[in-house]
């Protein structure tokens, strides 16, 4: 069961997208939301203070979504952290690569509040 006050980390290099995702998560009742501009920043944040759920874009400078996923899975304290990719890219090869790296779900943009909620609940259970 996923509690709405658990920490969620949004990773996206587009600040407008980060704001929209944050807005949607807040509408879903979540209160502990952090964000990072790219994979590198997200990884530092996860090592310093792990979040309970990561929602990440794919295409980002420095460290992309797949690189972040790989690094998080390789870091023992975060290796089981639910990781959702939220991206405009729906390339089958990339989805398969993400699956091999241990992604928990893959949501494509443009998302709706309902698709985001469904995508999150499929990974962490019904939001309480």
């Amino acid at each position, binding site marked *: 069961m996923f509690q709405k006050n658990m920490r969620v980390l949004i990773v996206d290099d587009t*600040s*407008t*997208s980060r704001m*929209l995702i944050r807005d949607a998560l807040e509408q879903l009742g979540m209160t502990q939301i952090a964000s990072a501009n790219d994979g590198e920043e997200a990884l530092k944040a996860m090592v310093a203070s792990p979040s309970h759920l990561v929602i990440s874009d794919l295409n980002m400078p420095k460290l992309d979504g797949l690189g972040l996923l790989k690094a998080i899975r390789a870091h023992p304290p975060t290796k089981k952290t639910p990781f959702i990719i939220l991206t405009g890219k729906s390339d089958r090869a990339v989805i398969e690569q993400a699956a091999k790296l241990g992604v928990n779900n893959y949501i494509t*943009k*443009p998302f709706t509040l309902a698709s985001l909620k469904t995508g999150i609940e499929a990974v962490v259970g019904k939001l309480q």
Partner: protein
Amino acid sequence: MTLTVAAPATRRITIIQGEYRVTDDPNVCFTTILGSCAAACIRDPEAKVGGLNHFLLPGDPQRAAGKDAERYGVYLMELLINGLMQKGAKRSRLEAKLFGGARTMMGLSDIGAMNRAFAEEFLQNEGIALMGGHLGGDRGRRIEYWPVSGRARQVLFSSHAKVETMPPPPPAASTQLGDVDLF
């Protein structure tokens, strides 16, 4: 004997609603027709790559009043920027021109104003320099954009005159020729 070398022909690619395209080919010209929709022309002058997107006109005013119109814009902006970066562009060097967002139908909600506000706010949020363009008004327009050079041309539609295809103008600074504007 005089040798003449023909300049490469311009290849025109039409971008329709909901689409985006990126190129590093200097002979490509993207063209699109806008009413209340908006288009962002974004390029990296150093990497010599550029592109254009065309935000969809939201169909349902109830939904458009919420976040959907903005999402569509964000989605297409993100795809465009990602496409540019995959061709070697850097975010810090991006520059943009914005077009469209007209109020073409009175009495309905002003979707054009929403598109305009979104496009300008997006560039501001992302730190992308706005170099020019033309937003608003009450007439549709055809945009032609040469992504590598950054040259843009706008032909405003009128209810009386049919817009004819014209040859590309020579490179020039912003010049106004009646209803044809160069940016």
